[in-house]
């Protein structure tokens, strides 16, 4: 018998032109891990929110159909009433943290649902241990890396021992090993405790090996619902990029272009004086795309910022030829102006013609007059890319450009970058499939802070 059921659910966000969900019917069984796939904006997160009763209670909008979780109709029972039975891990961990200490943060949900006081600390500690974050219990959340924070937020959901676990792109900030551990943990929860797991993911390769069932959403409609074997066939026919493993990692093409940036024996430490990089070196040539990979906290972003000139090394040297631009991990940081073309023109000394060309390059022709905040998350990603392309840099550095980006869009991005021989491109990424698809050379930054060309 299904633990949670959505029957003919349609939903329109307030002020939206088109429904986010259209007539979706799904049942979720205990012990089953269900993967929700689809392009950005196809309604994946909205479906999760419907099962958490956040839709319609928190967001308003027009809701029709019926969602029932553990016998509770979400039209009559709000998110707080479902908390504990349902637990949700949202996309951005920074926006869901309430307390300053990790242990208190994990305990917050337990306190809200009325867990006996004597049990709270033990359950919170146990949940932290389950995600390999027990050692973080006394730390300040502000001191954690994105990956560590994501694990803490996952622990906060697991501590509730929910019957339905909703994971919205839970691995977006995790390195491949941590991502694999998380997906395996979700599967183990389903197998051992009978938890129903509903998960969205933009790096579907691993979940496609471990999940039981796949839902595919297109423009808010359920285009596919079936077991994993059928899903593979269906995806291979209709959306092959969702089942392709990307390119061959490690392909090393020789480029004779001039050296655009060279980092020699660079070291760097932040204010706590712990070395993040120690004696690292990297050379980037015009016409090549280099992917920089490595586990969380290995110093990838630091190395990228050193290459871009945003940080100065403690020791060693950084030499650059021409102009470098750096795409931040957060596309929400490209919102200084009221029009997209003016925003993009900021880095091009106000040259609107260059800005419009850059917008067209990333597929945003016709969006010139739109306000950056009115764009969808995928469109914001593209706007941010246009903003760093418009200055026509000699060195283009992209920091996690595929976070939250669907596989089809990733393929477009890879094609765009591969077709650009006029500059050196450095891509920092956790997404090994994307690295393989886009890069001439993959550089792995090991925890020991040594660079090894692959």
């Amino acid at each position, binding site marked *: 018998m299904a633990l949670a059921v959505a029957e003919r659910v349609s939903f329109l966000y307030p002020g939206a032109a088109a429904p986010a969900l259209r007539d979706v019917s799904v049942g979720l069984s205990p012990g089953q891990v269900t993967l929700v796939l689809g392009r950005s904006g196809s309604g994946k997160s909205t479906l999760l929110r419907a099962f958490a009763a956040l839709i319609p209670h928190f967001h308003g909008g027009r809701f029709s159909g019926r969602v029932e979780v553990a016998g509770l109709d979400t039209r009559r029972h709000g998110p707080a009433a479902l908390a504990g039975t349902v637990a949700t891990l949202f996309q951005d961990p920074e926006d869901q943290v309430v*307390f300053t200490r990790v242990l208190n943060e994990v305990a917050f949900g337990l306190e809200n*649902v009325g867990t006996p006081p004597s049990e709270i600390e033990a359950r919170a500690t146990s949940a932290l241990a389950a995600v390999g974050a027990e050692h973080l219990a006394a730390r300040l959340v502000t001191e954690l890396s994105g990956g560590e924070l994501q694990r803490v937020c996952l622990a906060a959901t697991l501590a509730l021992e929910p019957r339905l676990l909703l994971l919205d792109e839970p691995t977006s900030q995790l390195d491949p090993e941590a991502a694999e551990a998380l997906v395996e943990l979700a599967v183990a929860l389903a197998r051992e405790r009978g938890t129903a797991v509903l998960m969205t993911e933009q790096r579907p390769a691993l979940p496609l090996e471990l999940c039981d069932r796949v839902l595919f959403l297109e423009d808010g409609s359920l285009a596919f619902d079936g077991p994993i074997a059928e899903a593979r066939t269906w995806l291979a026919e209709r959306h092959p990029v969702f089942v392709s493993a990307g390119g061959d990692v490690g392909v090393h093409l020789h480029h004779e272009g001039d050296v655009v940036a060279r980092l020699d024996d660079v070291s760097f430490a932040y204010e706590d004086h712990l070395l993040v990089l120690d004696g690292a070196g990297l050379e980037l040539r015009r016409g090549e795309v280099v992917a920089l990979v490595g586990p969380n906290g290995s110093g990838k972003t630091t190395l990228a910022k050193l290459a871009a000139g945003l940080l100065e090394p403690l020791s060693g040297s950084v030499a650059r030829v021409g102009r470098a631009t750096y*795409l931040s991990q957060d596309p929400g940081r490209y919102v*200084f102006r009221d029009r997209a073309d003016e925003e993009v023109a900021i880095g091009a000394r106000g040259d609107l013609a260059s800005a419009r060309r850059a917008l067209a390059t990333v597929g945003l022709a016709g969006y010139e007059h739109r306000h950056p905040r009115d764009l969808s998350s995928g469109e914001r990603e593209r706007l941010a890319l246009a903003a760093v392309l418009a200055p026509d840099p000699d060195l283009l550095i992209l920091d996690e450009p595929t976070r939250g980006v669907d596989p089809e869009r990733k393929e477009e991005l890879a094609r765009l970058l591969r077709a650009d021989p006029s500059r050196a491109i450095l891509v920092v990424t956790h997404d090994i499939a994307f690295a393989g698809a886009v890069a001439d050379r993959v550089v792995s930054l090991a925890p020991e802070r040594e660079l090894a060309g692959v």
Partner: protein
Amino acid sequence: MRPVPAAVLLFGIAAAALLAERTASVAVLASVLLLVCLRAPGARRWPYLVGALGSAAALLLVTPFVERLPGVIYWTGPTIPVVGTLDVTSTELSGAVFNACRLAAVSLAFAAYALWLDHDRLVQAAGLARRSVLAVALATRLVPALERDAAGLVEALRGRGVEPEGLRGRARLVSPLLAGSLERSLNLAEAMDARGFGRAGATRMAQPPWGALDRLAVTGAVLAIVAGALWL
């Protein structure tokens, strides 16, 4: 030490500094608090220390010029319309030192509170007023969140080769910062809702009982206030 008795002790010391009448006593209290703050992690302590000591130094510098008290005249300056003749006297100087020490002590007590106390536990100890205290705690956390957002926005500009310099350059950060904090607060509200915040029957994580050190801190706070009022 638990955060509530620690907060009471800091309050007691700050109150003693306000009640004390001798400059040396206030200076000793400020020095003790300065030592406490200096033991906090470097990256976190400097904004508080600069704020506390900077405002005390500003008070020390300005007070002799704006006060008009008799005493030995050390310096006579020009005559300014409305204000009159500027001078610095021994009484004005000693008053300035006293007030600067007082301000430093109170500011440093707040700095020690901000740097050392577990604010989460203060929220948990708030009992019936938990919702209000949690709102205050979240508002307090907004400041470092805004700092991080501002740093991120500056980085996004610098990543495009634009250096936000001067007042005008910084002013362009205001609008995206405000809009960003609104988005953040909505996301946080949604996450709190999903985690059952506001549900009836909430409990609190069990806290260890007060120890001898906690009782000593509260006693120390009372003694500090009494001493400040009667002897210091």
